[in-house]
């Protein structure tokens, strides 16, 4: 049986699945139910100065019959009294000593940071997460992403926290930057023990075309929110990989962003996350989703022969490279399995209009498309649109060319194979 114990910057949890700081970790009653359901840890909904929320807080991005492939919120940090939160944190930690309990914080002055860090640790926090990420509401008050977007401010506040904290400090980064690396490095310079990413992406989830108001609608106005859910996973994966592959960046990463099942979690871990945080899927489906996450991860590890999480964390990192290091002479073409093809011709139209005009309707009785392999550039578009699993496969062609990258080509003139489909 593989060991799922996670260790992120010294914060140990029975499995790598943590609730992200968000509505599902708003109260002790909720967090305890989550732990009962199997969650390994929880990052408490951000503590700070009391705020007040608006009515209408969330928006869903629905696509082709699927509810909320993306999700957006304009809710602020906790609106509950600080004393209540701290009392409940203490209670939860007492009752669940083996689960990781991390407290998310967001305040302004050094004095406030000092005070709230002390009280959080007194309550039993296993770690702190500095919320430098929220791109709505709090940033207008100089907090959240307003901090995360300024490396110097990030570094300074992180250094306060690091100096006042006796437990690991995680800096939660905002994705609302053009390059995540300076921000992760700023946290590292400030003395953080880990980073977590991504927080939500600044967004307008939709516009009501009748009332002409952006959603979520508050009275007669809308505002930008923070976007999350399955749709943001690719953005988050890139940012995790980008930091993890930065040689001078040495901190552990807690991965966040659209994780909905164990496969998503494995992807984040393969790119370097030592724990993962989940919010949206729990918002939509409840704490019970963790059962599949734990089992799926466990089965995956067993099948792969992994005994502990360290065996897989970062497993895909060596395969993440710059474009310039890709093998330009690698060649693949689309092959259609006539047996399983159902003749929808979605690949034909996709290739004709968005690809390289190399898939034709079949000429025989059966509707099976024909790929002109001389013209196929191996772009994957047909495989992406094909509704039948395994029907279109991108198959490597042995073209006799030795591997050669663009960087090698520029540096030493190594020869590249003739371009396809460029006439």
């Amino acid at each position, binding site marked *: 049986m593989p060991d799922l114990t996670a260790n992120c910057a010294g914060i140990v949890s029975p499995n790598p699945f943590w609730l992200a700081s968000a509505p599902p970790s708003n109260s002790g009653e909720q967090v305890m139910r989550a732990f009962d359901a199997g969650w390994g840890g929880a990052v408490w909904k951000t503590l700070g100065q009391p705020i007040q929320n608006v009515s209408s807080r969330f928006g869903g991005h629905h696509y082709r019959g699927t509810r909320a492939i993306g999700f957006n919120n304009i809710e602020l940090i906790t609106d509950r009294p600080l004393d209540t939160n701290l009392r409940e944190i203490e209670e939860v930690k007492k009752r669940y000593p083996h689960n990781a309990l991390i407290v998310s914080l967001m305040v302004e002055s050094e004095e406030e940071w000092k005070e709230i860090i002390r009280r959080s640790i007194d309550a039993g926090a296993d770690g702190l997460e500095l919320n430098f990420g929220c791109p709505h509401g709090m940033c207008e008050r100089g907090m959240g992403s307003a901090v995360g977007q300024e490396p110097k401010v990030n570094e300074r506040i992180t250094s306060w926290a690091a100096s006042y904290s006796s437990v690991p400090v995680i800096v939660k980064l905002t994705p609302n930057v053009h390059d995540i690396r300076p921000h992760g490095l700023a946290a590292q310079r400030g003395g953080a023990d880990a980073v977590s990413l991504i927080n939500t992406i600044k967004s307008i989830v939709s516009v009501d075309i009748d009332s002409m108001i952006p959603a979520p609608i508050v009275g007669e106005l809308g505002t930008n929110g923070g976007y999350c859910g399955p749709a943001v996973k690719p953005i988050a994966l890139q940012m995790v990989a980008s930091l993890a592959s930065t040689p001078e960046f040495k901190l552990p990463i807690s991965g966040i962003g659209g994780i909905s*099942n*164990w*496969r998503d979690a494995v992807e984040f871990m393969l790119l370097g996350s030592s724990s993962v945080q989940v919010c949206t899927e729990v918002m939509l*489906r*409840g704490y*019970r*989703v963790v*059962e*599949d996450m734990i*089992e*799926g991860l466990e*089965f995956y590890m067993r099948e792969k022969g992994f005994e502990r999480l360290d065996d897989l964390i970062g497993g895909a990192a060596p395969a993440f490279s710059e474009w310039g290091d890709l093998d330009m002479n690698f060649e693949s073409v689309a092959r259609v399995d006539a047996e399983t093809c159902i003749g929808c011709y979605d690949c034909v139209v996709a290739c004709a209009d968005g690809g390289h005009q190399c898939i034709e309707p079949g000429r025989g009785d059966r509707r099976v498309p024909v790929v002109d392999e001389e013209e196929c550039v191996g772009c994957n578009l047909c495989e992406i649109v094909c509704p*039948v*699993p395994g029907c279109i496969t991108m198959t490597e062609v042995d073209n006799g060319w030795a591997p050669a990258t663009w960087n090698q080509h520029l540096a030493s003139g190594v020869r590249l194979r003739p371009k396809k489909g460029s006439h």
Partner: protein
Amino acid sequence: MSTIPAERDETKFEDFKAPYTAHQARMEAERCLYCEDAPCVKACPTSIDVPQFIRKITSGNLWGSARTIFSANILGMSCSRVCPVETSCVAACVHNEQAVAPIQIGRLQRFVTDHAYESGWRYFEAGGSSGKSVALVGGGPASLAAAHELRRKGHACTIYEKRRMLGGLNTTGIAPYKLRADRATEEVEWVLGIGGVDIETSTALGEDVSLEELEMKHDAVFIGIGLGEDTFLSVTNEHLEGVHGAVEFIERIKLGRVDLDGVGRALVIGGGNTALDAVRELVGLGLDDVRLVYRGREEVKPGYAHEWEAAKMEGVRAHWQTQPIDYRGEGRVSGLRCVRTDEKKRAIDGSERTLDADLILLALGQETLGSLVASAEGIEIDGGCVRIDDNGATGRPGVFAGGDCTNGGKEVVNAAFEGKRAAEAIDRYLMGEK
């Protein structure tokens, strides 16, 4: 345990509901709304966490999906095929509320459990020995489910079965287009794979062994003896060739051959699910003229509507409000003498007629077996069935019961639940808890 003969009529049948491919299963699973406090779970006697097992199909976690199923119902493989889902979990699916096709829970469960069997996955281990032993009388679904649960808790088990093979009606009685006998015995072996279950076949209660002997030998007894012989009309010429009990005849289809040479028309008497299985099986074996004879109106027949719809699609006809009197024929049956009945199933004077038939199956029910234990002090019999409390306990200390012998004949899933429930009660009894 004796094996299933290779040559048998049931192998002529195709599955009524074809197995899902992985892609079909995934597409169907994606439609599930993952309801909370789900009606489908409440509709299942074993309370399988249906939304959870279906969600795990969508993530590719079939290993966990099967674990969810088997944790609730160790007979999840056969139940996926034989459960009348159209009247239980599938009927409860909330998609029905907006006239959207309900999730095909049975087919998804079959997909998962088949995959688990093919992959050789096992989930449960026997508990550390408790030093206690339990006798399970009858080798059908109730006893199997009970024995599995008792083994998990570390109690030694011995199953006493009057036949030469285990599985009960799953092996001998399920319509072959739902579940074949070899799959039923495969399940038996899979369940018994937990180890530590001794099997005494060809051992009938009341003939080869008595309840008192079992009580002497074991610390507790579970009675899961099911039902007995087919009920007949009790008329003088019932011995005619071509007149059979339906359950007995179905067993011959499943485990051997039946001779339908020269049979032009077959009648099946009864309106329950055994009758509906029998007509469909006769059609499946190639008979063109198969008719149901039932004394009430179509609307009041006890068999499932979806089964009758399927039978009609396959060409079966019915004589409703028709009550059998006796048979016609010399040596071999040639017809059934009947009388018409009114709305209240009462015979109408002067409405006698004879329906020609070369084969008549009686599906009027089966004998109850409560009498086998009726003399034991403390055991109460109610309408032929062994009376039990909400935990499966009889009035006799240490004697528990479940399945058809207590409920009069319900589904496999009821037996699976009742067996497991009794096992939990037996464990409490043995370990001295209240």
